[in-house]
């Protein structure tokens, strides 16, 4: 049975129960004018498009966009109706949304909407702002609309108001379907784990606690030691335990704040890498520093960057360079060291890139922020090829990544915000104590095969 056979309304989609497949199947069986499918991020759009193409759904069955992107297009096509114009490259999103809502609520474009789209589908509905909810409601007045989401996965923080699922969303879009087959875990041969994750939803939604000791064997609860050193040891042991198993895709859920705690964990734990935040602010800052510096200072800035991405390399390298400058050493200078020494004669960005590329190619190093290293190298190539400054190049490369989506490391550490929507075989929650029900649910539902939770008490959240 297709989603579109159901009356318009909301689909509650717990993690791993086939939400995306539901959308794909509905589009595959759809006839008539294309379906407008809206989601929140460009990465989400790309992911869905790839999934649809792989499933062989003809592109003329759907139109994919982000809610904000579609609203922006609308007011650009009809600027007089919108009464709002975004000047320059800075987009006033609330203003854009308000204008789009006004245009849609006026009903002037109803014939256009009905001639363009047969239906409306909105994904990740729990992440909508109040404005976006209003915009979708205005569209739903013209087009049969299905929204998919999970109130228990609502973890984004908003400056503006957020609609309440039961109080605002359901009255507008009554629940017509609740997905309840834990496909992700069934496909991984772990139906018991998947069913447990589904079953605990009721408690979590109610605001009650769950007892991790009563979970299936795939779930391992470890009491979090008070001592920091003990903590590090226990956690490293948990990571090592997973490393030993086959198919060891591991997601480590660390603290949301401070980011440094996760970076430090990755640096200190061999084999673990950082899942970068989307804004990649450390990259941009480092790019600015390298760009601004000259001569030896630039080498120092480069080495500082190296220490941010590769463990235990920068300091020894600096010492070796100093020594080699005084005179020949034993062992003789390596390629990297020779490149560094060239810095004292010339200080072009190409040299920086050479250093980083050579280090990346070196075996046996613990590169704990590989994505940031890769994007910096790409930025250096762009800057040298086009003759622009490194910081601008870094921002450009970051934007490219935004659309493309980042590659997932085999063992990555991130926050629930970063890991939401991703999957792995194994998950380790480093500290469940500060988590809300939503963050906890997102965290425990990442892994298909095993879950390890550190907390001071087995009853969480």
């Amino acid at each position, binding site marked *: 049975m297709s989603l579109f056979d159901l009356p318009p309304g909301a689909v509650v989609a717990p993690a791993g129960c086939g939400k995306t497949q539901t959308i794909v199947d509905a589009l595959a069986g759809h006839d008539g004018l294309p379906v407008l499918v809206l989601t929140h991020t460009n990465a989400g759009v790309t992911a869905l498009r790839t999934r649809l193409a792989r499933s062989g759904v003809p592109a003329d069955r759907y*139109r994919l966009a982000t809610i904000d992107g579609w609203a922006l*297009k*609308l007011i650009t*096509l*009809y*600027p*007089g*109706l919108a009464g709002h114009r975004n000047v320059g490259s800075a987009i006033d999103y609330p203003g854009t949304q308000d204008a789009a809502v006004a245009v849609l609520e*006026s*009903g*002037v*474009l109803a*014939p*256009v*909407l009905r*001639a*363009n789209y047969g239906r409306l589908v909105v994904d990740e509905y729990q992440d909508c702002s109040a404005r976006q909810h209003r915009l979708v409601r205005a569209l739903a007045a013209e087009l049969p609309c299905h929204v998919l989401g999970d109130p228990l996965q609502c973890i984004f923080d908003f400056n503006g108001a957020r609609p309440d699922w039961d109080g605002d969303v359901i009255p507008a879009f009554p629940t017509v379907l609740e997905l309840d087959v834990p496909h992700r875990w069934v496909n991984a041969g772990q139906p018991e784990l998947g069913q447990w994750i589904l079953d605990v939803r009721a408690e979590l939604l109610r605001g009650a606690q769950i007892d991790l000791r009563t979970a299936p064997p795939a779930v391992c609860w470890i009491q979090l030691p008070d001592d920091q050193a003990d903590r590090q040891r226990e956690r490293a042991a948990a990571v090592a335990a997973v490393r030993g198993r086959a198919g060891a895709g591991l997601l480590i859920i660390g603290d949301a704040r401070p980011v440094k705690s996760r970076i430090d964990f990755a640096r200190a734990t061999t084999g673990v890498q950082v899942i970068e935040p989307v804004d990649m602010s450390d990259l941009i800052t480092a790019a600015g520093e390298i760009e601004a510096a000259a001569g030896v200072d630039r080498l120092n800035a480069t080495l500082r960057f190296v220490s941010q991405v590769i463990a235990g390399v920068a300091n020894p390298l600096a010492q070796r360079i100093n020594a080699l400058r005084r005179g020949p050493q034993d062992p003789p200078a390596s390629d990297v060291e020779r490149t560094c020494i060239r810095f004292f004669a010339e200080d072009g960005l190409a040299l920086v890139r050479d250093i980083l590329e050579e280090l990346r190619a070196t075996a046996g190093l613990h590169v704990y922020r590989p994505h940031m290293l890769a994007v910096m190298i790409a930025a250096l190539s762009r800057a040298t090829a086009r003759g622009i400054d490194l910081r601008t190049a870094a921002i450009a490369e970051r934007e490219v990544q935004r659309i493309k989506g980042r590659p997932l490391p085999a063992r990555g550490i991130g926050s629930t915000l970063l890991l939401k929507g991703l999957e792995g075989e194994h998950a380790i929650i480093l500290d469940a104590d500060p988590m809300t029900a939503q963050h906890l649910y997102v965290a425990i539902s990442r892994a298909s095969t095993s879950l390890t939770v550190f907390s001071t008490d087995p009853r969480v959240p």
Partner: protein
Amino acid sequence: MPLIRQLKIERFRGIRHLEWSPGSGINGLIGPGDSGKSSVLDAIDLVLSARRSATFTDADFHGLDTARDILIDVTIGDLPASLLDLDRYGFFHRGWDSDIGVTDEPEAGSEIVVSIRLTIGADLDPKWTLFSERAEADDCLRDLPFAERVRLAPTRLGAFAGHHLAWGVRSVLNRIAEVRPAAGAALADAARQARAAFGDAAAAEVADTIAMVRDVAGQVGVAGAEEAEALLDAHGVSFGAGAIALHDGDGVPLRNLGLGSSRLLVAGLQALAGNTSPITLVDELEHGLEPFRIIRLLHQLGAKDAVPPRQVFVTTHSPVVVRELSAQQLWRARRDPDAPDLSLIKLGRNPADQGTLRTCADAFLAPSVLVCEGATEVGLIRGLDLYWTDQGDRPMGSCGVATADGTGSNMLQRALSFAQAGYRTGLWHDSDKELDAEELRALEEAGVMRFFWDEPNTTEMQIFASIADDAIRPLVELAREWNGEESVNGQIRARKADLDLAFDDPLGYDLAERSALGAAATKGKWFKTVSYAETIGRDVLGPHLAGSGGRLVQTVEELRAWILNAPEDGEEDAGDDVEPEYL
């Protein structure tokens, strides 16, 4: 069905400026020659035809001023779903409301429309683009794709229809059914048979020539030509599909039908094929057709359908068309002499206008109309016109003046109808009934020029009152001839018993006698047909006008001046200030 909501023309041929909202069904354009009616059709054709292959010359620029671009905007409504596509055409969606006109973006309650603009600059290179102000501000130029243009392209029922009656490439016959005659083999065969049948039929006539050719061939040693014969050339006998043509039952090609019949038939065929062609343009609709077939063609084009099947633009000079269409379907092309902006004015706003249209159709085709109270006045002015023409004046027709019979009680309404539609209107009426102030004011506001007699005279009374003495007798004699001597004498006697019926008094006639005669003529309806009055006008009134006096001469001279002072064809008095209405 897509249709034109608004047409805007700037600086195209004779049209400096036109902004016009046509009706959704048939639009009949009438007006003096060279008023720009055909240019309106040409403009629509140029913008909407699928092929972008028109060429232009300096003569297409208004006033030959190539410094300023020609602009033609066509705004299309009732859009097909494909043109509502948000991504492709959203930037060009505009709003249309019959009261407000075109707004650059759709508005509440307005219809979503799209404008197509044709621009021609001094380089004579035409550019077509979808147009909206916001797109123009963004320098966004985009034409409709070919598939859409084909859907909008108008059908033109022009002068030549013959190619549609055979199966050539561009014939409408190919569009009626999805079948093309695949008679290739049969055609080739026919060619072969023709050659075979001809054989050496030419041999006898050209025998001498053949002999000489063979001779020379033998002498110069061209072996192949020594046996030369005269046969049909294979190249000369080859047939394409275009050679298959429609014929009537007797084998006469339909292409030989008269022009009117061809156009009528083709119009019907194009209607069948015309589901792809929402807009139809017809030049000189009446061309080559008798009245009953003109009517047939109008019905074919949907003139009488409650819901028009398509939008049609027609130019015409035919009163048959004027009579057959409704006042809402007729537009008069009118040009301001000082500033040649063209206006198209809908002929009828009142239901009463329809009656005038039916009965005075001919008059609507002239720039100036003289509404006469009755047949007497119509006949008189015609007769006078003939007399004056004989004397060397310009005829009324050359001055663009037509007469309309007001049939007494209808004269005011008719005069108002003409005047409000922008015609230069005169009203010639008796003075025996008093017009009330209301009516007089309406006439004056409408700009109607009035011609009348001393009160309380009818025309007959005024004639007898003021005409020269020696015209009296001829008048009475004609009256006797047409109405019977006894009857006429009796009527005279009844009013003045002592009048000398011989009418040979050299001293002339006094007031009382003239009055009696006038009364008798009125009551007895002596001259009350157009032909009688015409004779009077030509043979009596005209020649004796010089010897007459009083109001008779004054009014007739006013009439004469009004007729002769009619502005040139195609222009109007600057005094006519009529608000055009575009409903």
